[in-house]
């Protein structure tokens, strides 16, 4: 009998406000949620509702104005910048709207690059990068530069990069925004597959309901607050 697994991320009554000159904007307002291993959660909501901000709080990119974010039991506010950087490198996988690959590195080099951030040996990072690219059906493209790859292929490289350091948490902010529906759907499928196979927690931001339906659970956000439904 396995003990109840602890959540990877626990967000408790989190608020994030920005002082945007013309006044204070509350991007995330009193949000609580949990992310557990092996589950892909979709976060949907209209533009400006606070999706990216919430994702950044969860991924140790932003510090909350109020409330706490616990990552595997550690309160992120207790960490300094160096420790947060190390945590991102070793335990969080990030996929952005665009693949954001380094243009002069090959696909495999782009993926292996983050291994160095986590202190992985170059050779090990390299072979794991090639293995991940093969898993994502990009084995034949490993020595191509980003410019030679399609948008969907670039985004798959970005997923491989996010998975390189075997993260506990995979975060994706509208990874399909610049892809057509079919490619977008394929990318989300790969994200779901990565979360299920590697047993990490997953949170993907999208405003496409059909894509959201590929997730295990859907969270809706409006004006910074989670709403039911």
């Amino acid at each position: 009998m396995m003990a109840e697994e602890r959540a990877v991320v626990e967000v408790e009554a989190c608020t994030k406000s920005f002082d945007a000159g013309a006044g204070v904007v509350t991007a995330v307002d009193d949000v609580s949620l949990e992310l557990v291993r092996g589950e892909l959660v979709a976060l949907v909501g209209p533009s400006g509702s606070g999706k990216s901000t919430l994702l950044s709080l969860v991924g140790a990119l932003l510090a909350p104005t109020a409330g706490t974010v616990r990552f595997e039991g550690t309160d992120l506010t207790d960490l300094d910048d160096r420790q947060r950087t190390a945590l991102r490198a070793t335990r969080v996988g990030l996929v952005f709207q665009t693949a954001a690959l380094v243009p002069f590195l090959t696909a495999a080099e782009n993926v292996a690059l983050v291994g160095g951030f986590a202190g992985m040996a170059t050779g090990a990072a390299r072979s794991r990068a090639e293995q991940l690219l093969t898993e994502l059906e990009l084995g034949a493209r490993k020595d191509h530069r980003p410019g030679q790859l399609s948008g969907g292929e670039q985004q798959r490289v970005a997923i491989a990069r996010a998975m390189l350091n075997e993260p506990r948490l995979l975060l994706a902010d509208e990874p399909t925004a610049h892809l057509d529906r079919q490619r977008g759907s394929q990318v989300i499928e790969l994200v779901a597959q990565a979360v299920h196979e590697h047993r990490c927690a997953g949170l993907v931001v999208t405003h496409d309901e059909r894509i959201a339906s590929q997730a295990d659970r859907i969270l809706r956000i409006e004006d910074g607050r989670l709403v039911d439904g």
Partner: protein
Amino acid sequence: MLLFLTLTLAGLADALDRGSTGVLRSLDADVVVFNEEARLQLLRSRVPRPMMLGAAFVDGVGQVGTLALVPTSAETPNGRVRVTLVGFSATTPAEPTTLVEGRLPVDGEPGIAAVDVALRAHGVRLGDRLVLAGEREVEVVGFVEDSTFLQQPTVWVPPDVWARVQVSAFPEAGFAEQLVGAAVIRTRPSADPGEVAAAIEAEFDGVRAVPLQEAVSAIPGVDVQRRTFTVLVAMSVAVLALVVGLLFALLVTERRSRWATLRALGAPRQLLVATLLVQGVVLWMLALLGGSIGTALLSRVVPDAMPLDLRLPVVGLVGVASLVATVVGSSVALRRVARTDPAAAMSEGVR
């Protein structure tokens, strides 16, 4: 490009400087004594012979020699050139240490000379006879290098030859028997040249004694030249810092989203800064190499009349200065990279 300019300027300055100061630098001496009216000018200096002899007894003085200069001209296989005739007493501190071929004349050996290698360019070879102004003929028995004076090649002869040329060139200057040019002194190993110079001035009336370096910078034009070129080189290094600063600022701003992305993916700040620094240093090395090659090539093609010479110490000095300029120039950009907010990767979206 900028480093090429800087190196060319520095090479030119160095060559000019060396061309002016060769005579004094080729001596193994510590103190030079002039008569007061000469105002530290070798060409004008006439110290009385008794003073010369007496100087040997001043505390701290090791050896004393005489050095006397007079401008004249010499008939070479390639025509008449202006030279500086240097009368020096053999086996004293006034003897040049830069003999590269043949031998030096000894005292009381008239009609014999060692000449600067610069005269080789005018077709002068060992054993040639040079006709100096006043139909005086000397045979070239040796070559010395790096011993020019005010960019002119030198002809080194025993002091009495100098005295006779001097008399025929400037009859009104009077009888030179009792007057010698400047006294050149090598101090005892333990003595301080500055103190010895002061002691000599205290001992004899109407003389001015200075350490060798001071006599070098008193050569006409040397001081001004040095200052001018220092300012020019410093300015081009400053411009370099500015250009590098702008270049890096541009580079960094343009790639801001990439820095943010890498930071978000967990790249430590130091790694990004180090990467940029390495880029800067590589750029610097390439520029220094390119600049050196360019200047070296330029020094091949410029006419001989324009002294341009690139020596390793000059490259080293300019290299260090430009490296500092590179680092200083890029520091603003580096700070900006170090401060990149990883959250920007998310909110700014990535291009």
